[in-house]
């Protein structure tokens, strides 16, 4: 290859390289966008499963349970109880609700609850009776038997209403009906209206990071949730780098926990956030925004209103 050809090849590389790089970047951006869209679709489907699950067989089960087995209504541990052990030896934990208070405290499936705050529980009904007196957010000591050995854990009981708030916005569920939004009246020529939660509307792109002791040293906090990217909804005035220390007096332990607390606020209710900004404590307070009503896919679009008649031509 002579020098002339080499120079031509070098020139071609120099000219084409930037455009190839740009094309690659565009391809990368497209791939990233598609991945993000796929994740959003997956999450939307998961939320639909969650909402539908509240309706599936719910009313009958709950009515029956309310009639026959009055249970705890104010606070919960987040366990799936089995039957009583022989000779009043406690109540077996069949399962632990993921992300629930018992899971956070280290309770495991297979443990046997033998006492709550010093009160022995030999059967499920006895456990229910003890839990009736437990206030939401109250810490209780569970005495467990694990592999035959005694274990003690402290569980912060979760308010039941936080669980009830997980019900669909537009459904006719059997519980927590007083918290449900009224159904949107049917409108002529329009599809079914759905409510999109105010958090999904304004907080979807926010990025929340659990504060660890090492990370917290930088921000002056030993716990809480770091707002790595502030929500686009500026109602509460959060900024990048803020650390949410408390929401309405409750300390968020993680992103999902912060969302769980925030979800309990209905539009118009005052949300109070205690934050650290620039390592200084501040309180942000604002009314929770309205949910956004949108119409289902395939709903016909309302035709635009007809243009007003033209003014009559004046005398020429």
């Amino acid at each position, binding site marked *: 290859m002579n020098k002339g050809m080499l120079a031509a090849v070098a020139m071609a590389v120099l000219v084409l390289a930037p455009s190839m790089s740009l094309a690659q970047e565009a391809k990368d951006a497209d*791939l990233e*966008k598609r991945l993000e869209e796929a994740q959003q679709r997956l999450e939307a489907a998961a939320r639909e499963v969650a909402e539908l699950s509240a309706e599936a067989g719910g009313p009958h089960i709950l009515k029956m*349970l309310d009639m026959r087995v009055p249970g705890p209504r104010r606070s919960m541990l987040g366990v799936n109880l089995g039957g009583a052990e022989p000779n009043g030896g406690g109540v*077996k934990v069949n399962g632990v609700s993921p*992300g629930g208070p018992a899971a956070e405290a280290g309770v495991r499936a297979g443990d046997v609850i033998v006492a709550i705050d010093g009160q022995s529980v030999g*059967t499920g009904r006895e456990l229910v009776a003890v839990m009736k007196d437990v206030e939401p957010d109250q810490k209780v000591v569970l005495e467990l038997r694990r592999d035959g050995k005694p274990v003690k854990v402290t569980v912060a009981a979760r308010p039941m209403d936080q669980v009830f708030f*997980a019900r669909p916005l537009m459904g006719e569920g059997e519980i927590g009906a007083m918290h449900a939004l009224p159904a949107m009246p049917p409108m002529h020529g329009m599809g079914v209206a759905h409510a999109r939660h105010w958090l999904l509307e304004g907080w979807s792109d926010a990025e929340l*990071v659990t504060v660890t002791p*090492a990370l917290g040293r*930088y921000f002056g906090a030993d716990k809480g949730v770091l707002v790595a990217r502030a929500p686009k909804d500026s109602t509460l005035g959060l900024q990048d780098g803020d650390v949410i220390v408390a929401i309405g007096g409750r300390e968020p332990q993680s992103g999902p926990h912060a969302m769980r607390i925030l979800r309990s606020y209905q539009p118009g209710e005052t949300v109070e956030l205690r934050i650290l900004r620039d390592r200084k404590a501040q309180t942000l307070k604002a009314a929770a925004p309205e949910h956004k009503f949108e119409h289902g896919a395939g709903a016909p679009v309302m035709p635009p209103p007809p243009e007003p008649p033209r003014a009559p031509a004046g005398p020429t």
Partner: protein
Amino acid sequence: MHTGLSEWSARLAALPGFEPPADAWPAILAARGPHESGCASLRWPTAVAAVVLAAVAGLAWLMQSAQRELAPAAISMTDPGVVASAAILEQNARLEMLLAALPERRAMRGSTAFTVSQLEDRLALVDERLSRISMEANAPEFSERLWRERVDLMNSLVQVRYADATNPL
């Protein structure tokens, strides 16, 4: 659009100055998850492909391992208060193991955190109902339906958490 590592650095650089502890940045990287601590010049498709391949291989391993390890922790039909088919209980146990095996994510997008919290609350509600129904002798059909509901919710939770774990923020 996801936040890149450089944007993170810029944001942290813009924070008010003070002497941070020496291990602050590694802690931040750790909080962001393992995927962003690698070579910054790695191209997106290569990185995504590597992550997806590793995740798929990991999931396959987890599935096999979950199947192998099912027996000891699984709830069985013979346990007091449990009325559900063996298939449902086995599915539930497998999903529990998969969920437990997924890496903990300290950083999460708002929509993911919302969805996870919603699913977890539903599961807590179903568990509360299952607990109460275990005290009721005449409700086997309700018990089966609740267990199915729990499996559906667990399946969704595993999928969301898995997608989140394999998708860099």
